[in-house]
């Protein structure tokens, strides 16, 4: 009996300790809400102790800054959020040391204005791309979700780790398990940051989580101005009248099946994926099937796999031209409507495959229905994304190869 009581006491003590650790900083009455009056008292105590010779017990600088954040961005209360994996987490302090394994999430964080000094480590892919992510040069290299560097990840003492939500789930689960065993206080969040269906929700969740709700709304207004324009104009086109599209990835004849990301993007742009009846996410299709389904538009993705060229680090259009020519020269493909009509388009994955997917959707919409979008300039959308939201000084009129042919 005594032993049971002791165990109970220990549990109560641990729970109490845990509750204390989870309290909103400077919430003196422990009500769970940091009021203006409590925050003011904390600020004055801190100033008094440091500069006015006061002897009051002042909050630590960390507590004070955390309290200011919680008051300003979370209405003085603990924040409970649900990430894209469905996990719910409650926070009483801001995240200040974030390790991000997902470069798409790094890009999304930049879109909403998250300061890079809150990130302590990034994936090798982010570091391999110093032109696009210059501010992360010198950050700890966490490896990748498939080959994580646990030593580095633990060494940077993250308070949070961001991982993919729906891809490489088992690898991400392993990372969570291992890092949690090293430091149980680490919080884990899952975001894909590239899936159109979850995009706006993820941007908003990220904004709330990181105190960038205004930045998130500003970015979503821009994103929405493009996506809403496209959606409104294609809405009146009956399903059967939608342009049939063949999309091919960087591997020849590898297309997109129902439910895949590219299938979703074709649909968003008002097209009808000719292989949407395939349940395999990325099926390898028979060239004869493409001929028989006779797409009006062909969209070829480059920038990865066997076709690593173009994008931000390449101004040369010759490889795009070669791919374009090769598609038009495929045996018997001159019978396909898209080839006969000169509607074969090449697009780089950096303009459609990640958080910037809406740029690719804008391009496709203009390719599918040029008459519907005489005023939509995807290149201008891309430029605004880079200048205003990615904060990069990159002139698309001077550099980069993202689409071919370009009619702008």
């Amino acid at each position, binding site marked *: 009996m005594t032993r049971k009581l002791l165990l109970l006491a220990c549990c109560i003590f641990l729970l109490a300790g845990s509750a204390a650790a989870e309290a909103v900083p400077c919430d003196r009455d422990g009500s769970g809400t940091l009021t203006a009056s409590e925050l003011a008292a904390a600020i004055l105590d801190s100033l008094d102790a440091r500069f006015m010779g006061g002897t009051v017990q002042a909050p630590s600088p960390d507590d004070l800054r955390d309290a200011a954040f919680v008051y300003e961005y979370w209405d003085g209360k603990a924040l409970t959020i649900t990430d894209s994996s469905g996990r719910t987490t409650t926070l009483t302090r801001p995240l200040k040391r974030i390790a991000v394994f997902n470069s798409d999430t790094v890009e999304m964080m930049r879109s909403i204005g998250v300061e890079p000094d809150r990130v302590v480590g990034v994936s090798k892919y982010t570091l391999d791309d110093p032109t696009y992510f*210059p501010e992360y040069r010198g950050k700890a290299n966490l490896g990748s979700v498939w080959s994580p560097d646990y030593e580095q990840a633990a060494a940077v003492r993250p308070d949070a780790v961001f991982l993919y939500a729906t891809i490489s789930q088992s690898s991400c689960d392993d990372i969570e398990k291992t890092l949690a065993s090293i430091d149980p206080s680490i919080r884990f969040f899952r975001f894909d940051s590239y899936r159109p269906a979850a995009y706006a929700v993820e941007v908003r969740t990220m904004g709330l989580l990181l105190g960038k709700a205004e930045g998130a709304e500003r970015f979503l207004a821009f994103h929405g101005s493009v996506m809403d324009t496209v959606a409104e104009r294609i809405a009146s086109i009956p399903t059967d009248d939608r342009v049939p599209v063949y999309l091919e990835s960087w591997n020849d004849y590898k297309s997109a099946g129902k439910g895949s990301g590219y299938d979703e993007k074709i649909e968003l742009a008002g097209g009808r994926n000719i292989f949407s009846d395939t349940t395999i996410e990325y099926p390898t299709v028979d060239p004869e099937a493409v001929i028989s389904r006779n797409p009006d538009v062909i969209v070829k993705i480059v920038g990865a796999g066997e076709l690593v060229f173009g994008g931000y680090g390449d101004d040369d259009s010759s490889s795009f031209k070669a791919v374009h020519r090769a598609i038009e020269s495929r045996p018997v493909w001159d019978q396909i409507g898209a080839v006969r009509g000169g509607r074969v388009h090449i697009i780089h994955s950096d303009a459609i495959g990640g958080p910037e997917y809406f740029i690719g959707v804008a391009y496709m919409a203009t390719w599918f229905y040029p008459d519907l979008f005489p005023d939509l300039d995807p290149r201008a959308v891309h430029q605004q994304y880079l200048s205003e939201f990615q904060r990069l000084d990159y002139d698309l009129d001077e550099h980069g190869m993202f689409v071919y042919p370009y009619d702008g």
Partner: protein
Amino acid sequence: MAPKRAVLLCVLIFLFTAPVTAVSVERTLTSSENDLEVTLTVTGIPIGGIVETIPDGCTWAGTDHPDDQTRVSGQNVAFAVIGEEAIRYRVQGPSEAGEEIAGTWENLQTGESGVVGSDGPKTSGEVAQTATPTAPGFEWAAALAAFAVVFGRRCRR
């Protein structure tokens, strides 16, 4: 993102500076006979603190800032800033004493701190002083402010 982007390192110029919000605390003095009204105009500091040191010979006479956001101790006055863009307070003393008021501010969201009045007096009768943000760290700013007071006093001797 393609690793090949690295090739154009020289072409791209990194501009990633967080959107710059002008941060300053401007002090405006209005004097009449033996009274000084001080207005602190706070820009870009949603949550922070300000400590003003009023010179010897001046007496604290009150403020319109909320009581629970103000603390007076000797010649020092601390203000907690929570969304306010202006703080007005009054002191009694000679009009020239306004030039000796020294202050420091701290932005609790960014960790920036600075000195109120680092630009010095601008016009007679009404004095506008501004501070520019500096690297995080409040203590040095306080030291600088203290130095400014001492230096100012020495100059007048």
